[in-house]
């Protein structure tokens, strides 16, 4: 319940409930005490209204002060029991008082003969109604809390994903950008057309990577376009030192995956593989669909004199987390160094636009 409209509507609902309750109780009183209808209504209605307002506020604040999930059940029960008894007592006393005043006025349509048993009955009703009010408040609070939690969860998830992609973008090695610009600078005087071509490749790469949204999947085909731009640019820098072999199933092209999942692996292969070898080598990228699984493999040669591939860790761990976030246990990434080669393998569910779950 938020906003002025909701409050007004809520107030109207409460008022109507009070009226209905008052009339019902008046009916009971008229029948049990054999009192005139008018007399019963004039006695019970005001008392009910006062009781309802007091009960509403009291239950509201107590329920918020004693949340179900933060206090001992015994403490909650105790506090509410005491409050309910007080509410019932207050109501019975109020009825007694109003009735006494009415009788003193000696007007025929005011006042009812109230026996002790009737007061006891109203006391009991007061206690029960208070408990009911508290229960309703708890339900409302829990409903609001759950709705808020869900909203907050979704927002947090989105923020986390955006932050992740932002980080991923910055993980594109700054060396890549500046070395590429340096190559373009060199080409301007020896191969003007080549310089223009490389400039366009670089622009395409950054335009595509910057336009991707973290929470929207792309097809393998789209990711491969980005990777081809990246490799074409690196090819200019490294010349014959960089060899590339792409092996992609036609069946895999339409499969969906989180954006820029493969590109960091290819970048790692260049940065920690080809860059470290005087004679360079061949990077192999294989993407295949095997039934309901999409399998991605990136392989590159490494310098045998180099220590354990320390630089690869952060990027690979990021890939692992992104897969866990998107697919839970259904996806995995594994990497290993075998002799003079380094290999990364990803398995994930093969989803297409037709089977998209999100």
């Amino acid at each position, binding site marked *: 319940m938020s906003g002025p409209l909701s409050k007004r509507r809520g107030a109207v609902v409460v008022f109507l409930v009070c009226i209905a309750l008052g009339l019902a109780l008046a009916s009971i009183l008229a029948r049990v005490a054999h009192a005139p209808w008018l007399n019963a209504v004039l006695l019970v209605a005001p008392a009910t209204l006062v009781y309802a307002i007091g009960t509403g506020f009291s239950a509201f604040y107590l329920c918020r002060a004693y949340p179900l999930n933060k206090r001992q059940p015994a403490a909650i029960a105790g506090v509410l029991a005491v409050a309910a008894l007080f509410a019932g007592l207050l109501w019975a006393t109020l009825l007694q008082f109003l009735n006494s005043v009415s009788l003193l006025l000696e007007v025929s349509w005011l006042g009812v003969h109230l026996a002790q048993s009737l007061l006891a009955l109203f006391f009991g009703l007061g206690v029960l109604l208070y408990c009911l009010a508290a229960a309703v408040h708890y339900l409302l609070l829990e409903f609001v809390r759950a709705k808020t939690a869900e909203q907050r969860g979704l927002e947090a998830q989105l923020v986390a994903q955006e932050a992740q992609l932002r980080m991923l973008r910055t993980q594109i*090695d*700054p*060396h890549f*950008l*500046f*070395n590429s*610009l*340096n*190559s*373009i*600078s*060199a*080409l301007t*005087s*020896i191969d003007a057309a080549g310089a223009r071509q490389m400039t366009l490749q670089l622009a395409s790469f950054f335009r595509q990577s910057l336009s991707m949204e973290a929470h929207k999947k792309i097809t393998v085909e789209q990711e491969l376009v980005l990777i081809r731009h990246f490799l074409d640019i690196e090819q*200019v*820098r*490294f*010349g014959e030192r960089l060899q590339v072999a792409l092996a992609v199933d036609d069946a895999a092209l339409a499969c969906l995956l989180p954006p820029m999942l493969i590109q960091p692996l290819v970048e790692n292969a260049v940065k920690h593989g080809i*860059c*470290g*070898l*005087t004679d360079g080598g061949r990077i192999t990228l294989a993407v295949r669909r095997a039934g309901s699984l999409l399998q991605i493999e990136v392989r590159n040669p490494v*310098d045998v*004199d180099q*220590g354990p591939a*320390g630089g690869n860790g952060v990027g690979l761990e990021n890939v692992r987390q992104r897969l866990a976030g998107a697919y839970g246990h259904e996806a995995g990434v594994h990497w290993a160094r075998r002799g003079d080669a380094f290999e990364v393998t990803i398995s994930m569910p093969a989803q297409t636009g037709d089977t998209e779950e999100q």
Partner: protein
Amino acid sequence: MRVAIVDDEALARGVLREYLARHDDIEIVAECANGFDAVKAIAELAPELVFLDIQMPRLDGFEVAELIGAKTRLIFVTAYDQYALKAFECHALDYLLKPYSEQRFEQALAHARAQRRAPAQLQAAVHAAAREAATRAAPLARVLIRDGAKVHVIASARIDYIEAQDDYIRIRAEGKSYLKSQTLAELEAQLDPAKFVRVHRSYLLNIDGICRIEAATKDSHVAILRDDTRIPVSKAGYQKLKVLVG
């Protein structure tokens, strides 16, 4: 002026070649695509100035800088390395950031021509910058030792011990000894302190190679290595070993 260009990318070397071609008094005596070739060429051809890229396979620019002599002036070239840039600024070394304009290139060249720092001072600055840039991430994974025009690469994990000898240190690894012009304290600061312990004023020891420790005298011990080499251990060194080895 005799100049060498060291960069693993042909296009990057081309930019420098193009800019240098405008100077009649400059002779390009070498173009190298990797660090090993650079150390060899610099040793043989003795250029007065070297444009030295930092990111290169197997031997990076800093490692080359540490291996060549003090007579050569250097201009470092890099695409992006915030730590290296800080080291350059701190030690007043010149550098070029790719891509760079011809104007910036001319500025660096003029500065190199006018270089008046004493060779020893310049070499100290280069070494300090190299160390700061190299150890920013992790302990040294390998030690480089120059032998004439040849360069030995020793993985740190394979070193048994290092012994101080006057102005040199003797590095023992896999049954061979190598002499390197460096102080024991410098190398100690670069190696992984969880693996290499200064057990004696003159010895830095790889604790993985220790077989056992024996008492030599009342106040001193000796460490026995796998190949039965005996390394003296001072009282302070013994305390360090007890903490690490248990």
